[in-house]
């Protein structure tokens, strides 16, 4: 991979630091009047999600990370790995439970996910902002309830539990905001 100098550091650039693939979040140039300039850099470790603060001498460089963001379709899980498919090449990628992380709650077959590949293997899987999933279990709704009338827990096909209005019933599909984990509306009919 190419090396990148501090003056090429910009938000989103993927580099290797301490053997870990990182994404640069912020790069601040500091210089005490005359003398040595520094770059204060915030990086996200793409594997752990942790944010690191590091100071570099201006002009120092880091090796680029072989990191690629791709859109893949979720296919299935064999209990150990989660399989995603490239809809164009039909290439299959096996992601570990670690890589899928919390996104496991929002996995639906044939849905597209943003998968970050490091040296060709998935390290993170991000869900779309909104996803539609079916309710497998919830208490029956009561007559006369309105959207303002309170909420109840509902279990989805993925096992995730979200709060839904009382008028929503078992077997219905609902739209969820994956960033907050909140119910948005009934799923669009199709």
């Amino acid at each position: 991979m190419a090396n990148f100098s501090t003056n090429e550091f910009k938000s989103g650039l993927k580099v290797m630091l301490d053997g870990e693939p990182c994404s640069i979040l912020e790069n601040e140039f500091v210089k005490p009047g005359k003398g040595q300039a520094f770059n204060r850099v915030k990086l996200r470790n793409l594997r752990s999600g942790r944010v690191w603060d590091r100071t570099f001498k201006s002009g120092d460089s880091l090796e680029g990370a072989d990191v690629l963001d791709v859109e893949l379709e979720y296919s299935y899980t064999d209990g150990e790995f989660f399989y995603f498919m490239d809809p164009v090449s039909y290439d299959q990628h096996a992601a570990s439970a670690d890589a899928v992380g919390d996104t496991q709650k929002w996995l639906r077959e044939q849905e597209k996910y943003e998968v970050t590949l490091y040296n060709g293997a998935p390290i993170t899987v991000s869900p779309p902002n909104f996803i539609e999933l079916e309710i497998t279990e919830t208490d029956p709704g009561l007559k006369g309830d309105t959207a303002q009338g309170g909420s109840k827990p509902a279990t989805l096909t993925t096992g995730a539990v979200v709060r839904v209005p009382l008028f929503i019933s078992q077997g219905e599909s609902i739209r969820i905001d994956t960033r907050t984990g909140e119910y948005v509306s009934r799923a669009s009919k199709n």
Partner: protein
Amino acid sequence: MEVETPLLCRTGVSDPALENFVVPCGQEQRFLQTSPEYAMKRLLAAGSGDIFQICKAFRQEEQGVRHNPEYTLLEWYRQGIDHYQLAREVAELVAAVLARPGWQVWSWQTLFQEVMGAGAHCASRDDLEELALSQLGEIPRGLDLDGLHDLLMSHCVEPAISDWGIVFIVDYPASQAALARQILDETGEPKGARFECYVDGIELANGYWECGDAAELRARFATDNRLRKARGQSLRVADEYLLEALAAGLPSCSGVALGVDRLLALKAGVRDLDAVLSFAWSRS
């Protein structure tokens, strides 16, 4: 007297911490000036008397919230005064423009100890690296003593004085004199007769009681070039026009360069230089 000097000159600056933009001009290459000081000192040597100018200056690779590679300097020179007196003049100007009530003056040594602890100003390189590690965690390795001073200045001292208003730091370690003359402090220790003006922890101006000794400056340029070579930077030819002028005699004078964009940002109460530039680097 207001003057105007060339921005595109035959020679660049030797300071290893500065990089000129190099511009191909036919068979030769020329250097966009990082400050107008060489040309202005030539005018002083030619008998101009006190002079000032507001001009653009260019520094490659200096880009950030408070740096734009193309920026505006106010630079002026006063004959017959030292850097303490010039610092006072800068203080009066800055206090008036920003409507601030007053200012503080600290020697580099006192301020460094105030923030970093007693004895920090004369700590060895290894001790200082230890101190930097304990204060900052991860730090870049292989910094020399001046580099560690710069690291602690920018990462510890500047944040520490960010609510002190207008602060002048005077009398730098001799190795950080740049183009200032060397003076002896009360203990006989050599110092650079240089000052920096900070407002709210932001560096605003740098001034010197000018070194007019051509041989001394030639030696400093050579030292700079040795450092540049060691760091893999391209070497810079000494500005013979400047050295000739100094050899002919520079009147005793002090000079200062003040970042106009930063002054405007402080006046406007904005952090980002973008806010006071018509089109910042990324959009120019």
